[in-house]
């Protein structure tokens, strides 16, 4: 397929500007700041439409098929969310609209915070952070501010070795040093290792529950107790909240700060479909540090409160990704109290159903009941077929590849998260495909190693692409050797 630059023909256009009806101005900008001709593609409207329609048909999303990307919760995005977000009163609302004319929008944000508080057991929320990692940074800034407030200097954050890579990145960006805590042979945080690393320099632990191995931290109460006895805080990465919504609450097991991913658990678009949203919840004691401003409900009116002297300040312009908040609000309201619990239950049920089918054929590093996701490895694949080969081969069957080679502590990890939105038929079909690929690895390993064979582009040279990336178009494309 050609690039849009390659179908460009000089003089072709897709727009007609109206005639200039004001006097033309010369020399408005200093000459040395002006650019020459811009090398933009020149194409007709039909060229544009055909080009991007063709691209979109090559795309694969959750609207096309099964997308079991572990730790990403690529659940289906209900279309009713889009209906609400497109209502004129929300879609056309200017962020500087005064309070008295935007009561409905303020109410949505206020109530969404209340729902998140109920679901997570946290005492207050901010909706500002625009991504999960942004929520992590916000959380770390609150940790920093908290210790400044009590005049203690603490520089270290404990992070389990199974954590998402964003955790140590957020910690480092905020000026803390991360210290790794090992996992035990059950796939959980090693409590003894954790205790051995506790001292008065430890500000907090940043943990994920269920963790990235898809396992619930059964010693969570001992962990939060040990941290609190040390005067440290507990941050929970809510990336895997999906497994516990409506069943258990982080606030009840001692979490002080938590971020949730609206684009995972609460069904707003994810990945290229974004933008994201990573609201942060805190305990009462920490609520005065939340980003400014907050929506309040006083005398039957919603108000924007800027008077927060202890706040860490703004972390995002205006109030976060508002359109995404409307979608998450819609999701929670349309599911209702019982529906939300069913989300958690069915995500765990679906994962365990798949695990029970696949563990007869694939090596399972932690053989126990999982939460909403689980891990297999490539150990039982024959003839040198690897996790990477398996992932590519899945594409040939019209399935998105799972997360691979993560978490790093499992060799050849294949991390599968079916989500609650998939039917038994879809799960059965996926299990059959997985078994077929296993069989192929025994009988015709070359097919699996050469995959993908049915996709628009064949196997890519990912080593060359990473070593010598071509990042921009220049007249013609020179493929590095």
């Amino acid at each position, binding site marked *: 397929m050609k690039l849009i630059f390659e179908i460009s023909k000089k003089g072709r256009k897709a727009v007609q500007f109206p005639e200039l009806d004001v006097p033309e101005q010369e020399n408005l900008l200093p000459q040395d700041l002006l650019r020459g001709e811009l090398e933009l593609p020149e194409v007709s409207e039909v060229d544009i439409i055909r080009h991007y329609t063709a691209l979109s048909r090559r795309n694969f999303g959750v609207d096309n098929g099964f997308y079991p990307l572990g730790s990403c919760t690529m659940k289906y995005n209900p279309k009713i969310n889009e209906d609400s977000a497109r209502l004129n009163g929300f879609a056309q609302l200017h962020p500087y609209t005064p309070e008295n004319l935007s009561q409905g929008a303020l109410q949505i944000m206020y109530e969404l915070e209340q729902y998140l508080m109920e679901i997570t057991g946290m005492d207050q929320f901010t909706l500002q952070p625009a991504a999960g990692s942004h929520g992590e940074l916000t959380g770390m800034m609150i940790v920093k501010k908290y210790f400044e407030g009590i005049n203690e200097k603490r520089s270290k954050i404990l992070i389990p070795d199974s954590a998402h*890579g964003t955790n140590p990145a957020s910690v480092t960006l905020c000026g803390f040093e991360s210290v790794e805590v090992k996992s035990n042979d059950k796939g959980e945080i090693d409590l003894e290792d954790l205790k051995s690393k506790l001292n008065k320099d430890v500000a907090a632990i940043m943990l994920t529950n269920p963790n990235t191995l898809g396992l619930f931290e059964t010693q969570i109460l001992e962990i939060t107790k040990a941290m609190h006895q040390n005067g440290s805080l507990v941050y929970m990465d809510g990336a895997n909240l999906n497994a516990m919504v409506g069943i258990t609450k982080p606030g009840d097991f001692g979490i002080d700060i938590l971020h949730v991913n609206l684009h995972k658990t609460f069904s707003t678009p994810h990945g290229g479909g974004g933008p994201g949203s990573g609201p942060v919840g805190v305990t009462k004691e920490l609520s005065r540090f939340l980003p400014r401003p907050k929506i309040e409900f006083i005398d039957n009116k919603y108000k924007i409160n800027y008077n927060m002297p202890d706040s860490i300040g703004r972390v995002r312009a205006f109030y976060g990704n508002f359109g995404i908040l409307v979608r998450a609000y819609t999701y929670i309201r349309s599911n209702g109290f019982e529906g939300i619990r069913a989300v958690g239950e069915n995500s765990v049920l679906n994962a365990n159903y798949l695990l029970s089918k696949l563990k007869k054929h694939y090596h399972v590093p932690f053989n126990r009941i999982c939460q909403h996701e689980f891990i297999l490895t490539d*150990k039982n694949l024959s003839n040198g077929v690897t996790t990477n080969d398996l992932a590519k081969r899945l594409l040939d069957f019209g399935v998105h590849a799972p997360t691979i*080679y993560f978490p*790093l502590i499992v*060799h050849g990890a294949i991390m599968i998260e079916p989500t609650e939105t998939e039917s038994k038929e879809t799960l059965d079909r996926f299990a059959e495909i997985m078994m077929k690929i296993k069989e192929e690895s025994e009988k015709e390993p070359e097919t699996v190693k050469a995959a993908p064979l049915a996709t628009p582009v064949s196997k890519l040279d*990912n*080593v060359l692409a*990473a*070593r010598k990336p071509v990042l921009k178009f220049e007249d013609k494309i020179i493929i590095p050797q």
Partner: protein
Amino acid sequence: MKFIGNIPDNLRYTKEHEWVKLENDTAIIGITDYAQHALTDIVFVELPEKGKKVEQLKPLCIVESVKSVSDVFAPISGEVAEVNSELSEKPENINQDPYENGWIAKLKVVNNDELNNLMDSENYKKYLEGLKE
């Protein structure tokens, strides 16, 4: 069969799979054959800055493969005296020749005794054999 790789006799090793060779007060360091094999194709090395001071077993620099991004830990405390800048163009040197062309940095060493905290080739081999896959 587990890959153990080449383990030269004259080097010392860390549990994080770095090697170090001491020449007078200069330590040449890199990652082991086992490490490069486990990382698979290395695509980028973020070399340390000259003059950077580092403590033993603290992060020194970063190697990136198609699979993951990993810290390289300093096998011994010291100050970065020289880096292998050829790796910016040819990170694959680490895969092809981890103990010679694939060296990463030279450190000016303060305390030779720290070598005693590291494994010799025999112990490193035993350590690798004992690692779970």
